């Protein structure tokens, strides 16, 4: 068995939070997540990936892929045999208790790293990518969006993403040439630390509650690793004031005041374009540590309330340059074009 191994982790619960109710955020069906994985398997097979390590879940994604593999092997024995391009061997990462929490993603990614995965594809939203990044180490990540409310993962056809991941995993395209290290934000309250790939928001809410930050009036401070003008979500606010690209070393932070003279009309969630009051926008230098002003509240990482803090804890937010290594899909396929990796000759190849 070869060592061109790709890990695929899919979050069955992404895209199900309160934003479906308070805005018109999309519902991304489980069946479509399973379809994406199957389309990727075809792409992996086409470029010579040997083995795929797939996370298991109780949400029906891994079960649907398992059934699809069974159906294909049945078809190969029957009259349609040989019509499919081969899929790589798929190993289901089972045998561990499934907790139906972020811990499942962490465990799956750890096992992929240990088993020698050369790329880890992550299906979910910003939250899933964030959790996967915390365990991926130096293994390149390719984050694919399964919804409309994401900034970090790209909305991209899984077949094409699968080709890119496969070309990196087989070594046909050198990983160093087509990956770059993302920034990350580290939020710290006492001994507790959470990371964010896009933004850290300080909320005046007292409880984690329904998790998603969907009411800008509750946000008192915002930190962004990058802020693109065409983003969706909280980072779009600063994307309109002081845009920061993913590849730039610095970040941006601001204090939010509902009644501030400067208001930005921002798409802070799908279907939610609201004026947001912003005061004191400034750059975050790489490595710089910024205090949280509020005495008590909740810190949200990549749009999810996660870390509660009480008076006396004095949380901080730090911009770090050592985020996950990310696969640049267009760069992989551009290099493939230059090297002729997907070209074949003759009528019967």
């Amino acid at each position: 068995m070869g060592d061109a191994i790709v890990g695929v982790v899919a979050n069955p619960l992404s895209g199900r939070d309160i934003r479906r109710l308070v805005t018109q955020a999309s519902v991304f069906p489980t069946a479509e997540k399973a379809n994406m994985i199957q389309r990727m398997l075809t792409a992996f097979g086409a470029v010579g990936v040997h083995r795929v390590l797939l996370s298991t879940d109780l949400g029906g994604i891994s079960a649907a892929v398992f059934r699809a593999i069974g159906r294909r092997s049945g078809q190969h024995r029957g009259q349609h045999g040989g019509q499919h391009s081969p899929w790589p061997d798929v190993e289901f990462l089972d045998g561990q208790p499934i907790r139906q929490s972020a811990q499942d993603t962490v465990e799956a990614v750890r096992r992929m790293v240990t088993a020698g995965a050369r790329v880890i594809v992550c299906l979910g939203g910003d939250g899933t990518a964030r959790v996967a990044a915390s365990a991926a180490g130096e293994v390149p990540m390719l984050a694919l969006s399964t919804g409309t409310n994401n900034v970090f993962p790209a909305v991209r056809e899984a077949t094409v993403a699968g080709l890119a991941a496969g070309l990196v995993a087989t070594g046909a395209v050198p990983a160093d040439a087509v990956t770059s290290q993302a920034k990350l934000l580290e939020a710290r309250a006492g001994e507790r630390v959470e990371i964010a790939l896009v933004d850290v928001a300080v909320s005046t809410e007292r409880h984690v509650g329904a998790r998603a930050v969907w009411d800008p009036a509750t946000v008192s401070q915002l930190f962004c690793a990058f802020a693109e003008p065409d983003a969706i979500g909280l980072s779009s606010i600063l994307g309109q004031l002081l845009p920061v690209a993913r590849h730039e070393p610095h970040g941006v932070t601001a204090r939010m005041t509902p009644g501030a003279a400067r208001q930005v009309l921002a798409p802070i969630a799908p279907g939610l374009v609201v004026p947001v009051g912003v005061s004191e926008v400034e750059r975050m230098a790489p490595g710089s540590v910024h205090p949280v002003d509020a005495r008590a509240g909740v810190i949200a990482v990549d749009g999810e309330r996660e870390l509660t803090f009480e008076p006396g804890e004095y949380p901080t937010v730090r911009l770090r340059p050592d985020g996950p290594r990310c696969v640049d899909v267009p760069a992989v396929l551009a290099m493939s074009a230059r090297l002729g990796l997907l070209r074949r000759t003759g009528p019967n190849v």
Partner: protein
Amino acid sequence: MTDTVERKALTGEQLLSAYRAMRTIREFEERVHAEFATGDIPGFVHLYAGEEASAVGVCSNLDDRDTIASTHRGHGHCIARGVDVGEMMAEIYGRSTGSCHGKGGSMHIADLSKGMLGANGIVGGGPPLICGTALAAKIKGTGGVSVAFFGDGGSNQGTTLESMNLASVWNLPAIFVAENNGYAETTSSTWSVASDNIADRAAGFGMPGVILDGFDFFAVHEAASEAIARARDGGGPTLIEMKFTRYFGHFEGDQQTYRADEVARARAELDCLKRFADRTVQTGELAQADLDAVDAEVAALIDQAVDSAKAAPLPTEADLLTDVYLRY
């Protein structure tokens, strides 16, 4: 502070009231569990322990205009809606002082004066009822909202799916709360629910669907608050799915050979009462002494309910022909 923040923050009194309701449900169910084992309680009982944050998180957003429909696992919904605990216990014991004069039992506790349309022995029996009450509220313009609780088993019933369709077509102030505790009797919902997430079905009916940690009162309260406000405002129905675990078997006496020991972990790590108490004491919103006082008060209330129920008379033969629509 903005209006939004003020609207969402719960007062100490509201928090204590929510804790009291959740603690009452837990104490009630733990006690029925113990009493059922003595053989004194007739019929079947299905206990709600573990799921308290769902009933209380939702019902704490309701008022006198609103109605709920419940399930065979209905004690929690009754208590959260304010049905008298003494009358409930008497009903479970089959006594004439019960909510339904001892003729309904655990699975038929109802109190229309509290907007509680009834526990329901029919799986998926509640959703059609709330389409009726929600339609009435809409026509009368009361601003009332109706909530149907049902389980993962009920989510697969035609009645539930038809009701969600009807509620959407009529744009009713109706909330569908799927309490997915993982098993329909003994059948795993990961096997029996084709869409895996019940909430995903909402898209097919043109309504929002959200999934919540059903062990977290604050998550439930926040989402229910928004869904109910939206429904009152003419925004139409919502489907909310709670993911959690019931602490006892499907019914009392269930050997539970179909599930591993997930209950111990849920009780230790996820329990709604423990998390609520830890969190509110940590933030200073409530004092431990207040919570302890509620615990003592609730324990006494349940003791009293059991003692009174046991001492109350059974219905007589003459009662057979009362409270019926038709005398044969």
